[in-house]
């Protein structure tokens, strides 16, 4: 019987499968057609800007397009001695042109990232270069002896390429020496791995705090009678609905030195002096924990809800003591929820900007805050983009882990 069906099935399978597929094709095409607008929209307004950010992190047009003739002449340069007269003559022509189009400052600014002092050297020389006469090498050296330093020439030569790993390397505290070998940045400039580590540490601490605070809440949500559980759920969801800025504002007010928390601590005689709470790591983690708690609680709760109460009862009736029944029967079944909730909170915590900016001190600023500073204050867009690329890479890595362990359909909004 089974063999008969099998052989029959096999001979008829292909035409039938094709027929079914053909019948389903219009519905399938309609389904695809409905998703296309949203996909296109998200790709154009969201993914293209991110690609633009990634491109900006390696773009390097300033020197190559600002000093075109010098670049050609430097091709024959040996890389360590002082360049010869024709290189200096080309630089004189390039700098004169740069001065006329007022682009000398942007070339100088770019070189200054790699050699401190290059900006004033370049801009200062460009201002007077039109008065130079051959031999140019002597004229440059007379103007500023720094032109005799081969290092500035190797930096100029290295920036012949319009794409550079410089910003990305700087974002992880690496740099190239004159020979092009990778080395770590000097201690006083090597701050970005520290910032990355701090970002990961704060996110980890927040994740752990939300788990410790949230797990019992999720558990009680499953235990309480429906009406009380609904009230408890309301207390979890309302903060989630309140704008992040409002919640951060509340913490800014609460944590003030003459604010409510200090009032309570003094009133309870827990401390004699007012504590510094705002602009501290403690304050930042506290506020972030408050904001992230619902994101950790909800996935844990939705998994706990599906665990049958009979499991614990069975364990108890078979003689397991309460603690063993909980740890060996109940807790392992909640792990998918714990994973989803913790990864979600960790991912979201990595990208915090508002809360560290308003509640944290200078030592608590996270990667996003540095990105903002480099865009708005230092106007170094390329480096801001490189820091963004690092943050994106770390976030996507953990998102990949989330998709693997939990799945996109585990994202819950209450």
């Amino acid at each position, binding site marked *: 019987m089974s063999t008969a069906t099998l052989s029959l099935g096999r001979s008829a399978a292909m035409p039938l499968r094709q027929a079914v597929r053909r019948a389903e094709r219009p519905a399938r095409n309609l389904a695809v057609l409905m998703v296309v607008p949203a996909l296109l*929209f998200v790709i154009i307004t969201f993914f293209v800007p991110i690609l633009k950010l990634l491109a900006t992190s390696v773009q390097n047009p300033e020197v190559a397009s600002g000093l075109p003739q010098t670049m050609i002449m430097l091709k024959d340069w040996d890389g360590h001695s002082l360049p010869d007269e024709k290189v200096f003559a080309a630089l004189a022509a390039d700098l004169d042109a740069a001065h006329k189009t007022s682009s000398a400052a942007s070339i100088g600014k770019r070189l200054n990232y790699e050699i401190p002092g290059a900006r004033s050297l370049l801009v200062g020389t460009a201002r007077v270069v039109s008065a130079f006469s051959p031999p140019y090498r002597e004229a440059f050296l007379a103007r500023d002896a720094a032109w005799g330093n081969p290092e500035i020439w190797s930096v100029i030569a290295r920036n012949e390429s319009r794409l550079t790993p410089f910003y990305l390397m700087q974002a992880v505290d690496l740099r190239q020496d004159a020979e092009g070998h990778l080395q770590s940045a000097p201690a006083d400039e090597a701050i970005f791995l520290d910032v990355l580590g701090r970002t990961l540490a704060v996110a980890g601490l927040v994740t752990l705090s939300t788990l410790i605070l949230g797990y019992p809440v999720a558990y009680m949500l499953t235990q309480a009678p429906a009406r009380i559980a609904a009230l408890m759920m309301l207390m979890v969801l309302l903060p989630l609905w309140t704008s992040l800025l409002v919640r951060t504002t509340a913490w800014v007010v609460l944590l003030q030195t003459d604010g409510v928390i200090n009032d309570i601590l003094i009133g309870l005689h827990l401390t004699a002096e007012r504590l510094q709470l705002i602009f501290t790591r403690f304050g930042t983690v506290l506020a972030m924990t408050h904001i992230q708690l619902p994101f950790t609680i909800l996935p844990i709760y939705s998994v706990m809800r599906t665990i049958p109460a009979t499991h614990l009862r069975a364990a108890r009736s078979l003689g397991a003591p309460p603690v063993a029944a909980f740890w060996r029967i109940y807790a392992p079944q909640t792990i998918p929820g714990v994973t989803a909730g913790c990864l979600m909170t960790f991912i979201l915590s990595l*990208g915090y900007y508002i809360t560290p900016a308003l509640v944290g001190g200078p030592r608590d600023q996270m990667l996003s805050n540095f990105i903002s500073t480099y865009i708005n204050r230092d106007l170094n867009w390329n480096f801001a983009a490189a820091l963004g690329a690092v943050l994106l890479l770390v976030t996507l890595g953990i998102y990949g882990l989330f998709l693997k362990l939990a799945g996109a359909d585990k994202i819950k909004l209450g």
Partner: protein
Amino acid sequence: MWLPTYATPFERASRFIVLSFAICVLLFLIAPLFVIVPLSFSHDPFFTLPVKQWSLRWYADFFENPRWITGIINSTVTATSTAILATTLGTLAAIGITHPAFPFRKAAMAVLISPMIVPIMIVAVGSYLFYGELGLTNTRLGLVLAHTALAVPFVIVTVTATLSTYDGNLSRAAASLGAPPLSRFFRVMLPQILPGVVSGGIFAFAVSFDEVVVALFLTGAEQRTLPVQMFSGIRDQINPTIMAAATLLLALSILLFGTLNLLTRRT
């Protein structure tokens, strides 16, 4: 406390401890939100409780300042446009993606959901660089486009959840009775899933209304939204008028949240 009758004294004690702990955490969740309310009605410009003298002066300040008013108008217009655009795109996508014959569902979902995951600063800087080239910075259109991308995932997640309770046989029955696709959608399916669609729209509105970082990068003085105005205010010098603004935002959140609860209860 909600324990079976055979529970041992140890279990009763530990249940009491866990419950007390959970109640403390719930209070920790909710209390900070409501601290700002009394402070906004305080006459004194200090952030201390209890309030000695009540007053509406900070609300008067708020409503007399054209900057705050511009902020409210900008936020409302931006959030409404975002909600309409995101709900349309997101609802269509949710219906398409839940169709059993849809190919590459996991990949498409991961792409559509990713705006929820990517750090907001990266979105802000990327948009600032890209929209700047298109001349869309310092325009409301640019902000609406960026906010819509952020809001679409919320609509998709909400509508997808509602669609899981929708009985596909209704559409099939309508089709067998001769209803063309558009009538099937508007007269059979949409009325059934409308609460989910409206919830998605409310989510989208809230996402846009509360968003700070992208708005900070993409707006000039004319398009400044309420949260941007608040953020700059706190950075500068926190003052009680900001408490009034925060209280109004909190009231709006409670209103939206309440509406959402009414909608979901009915289904």
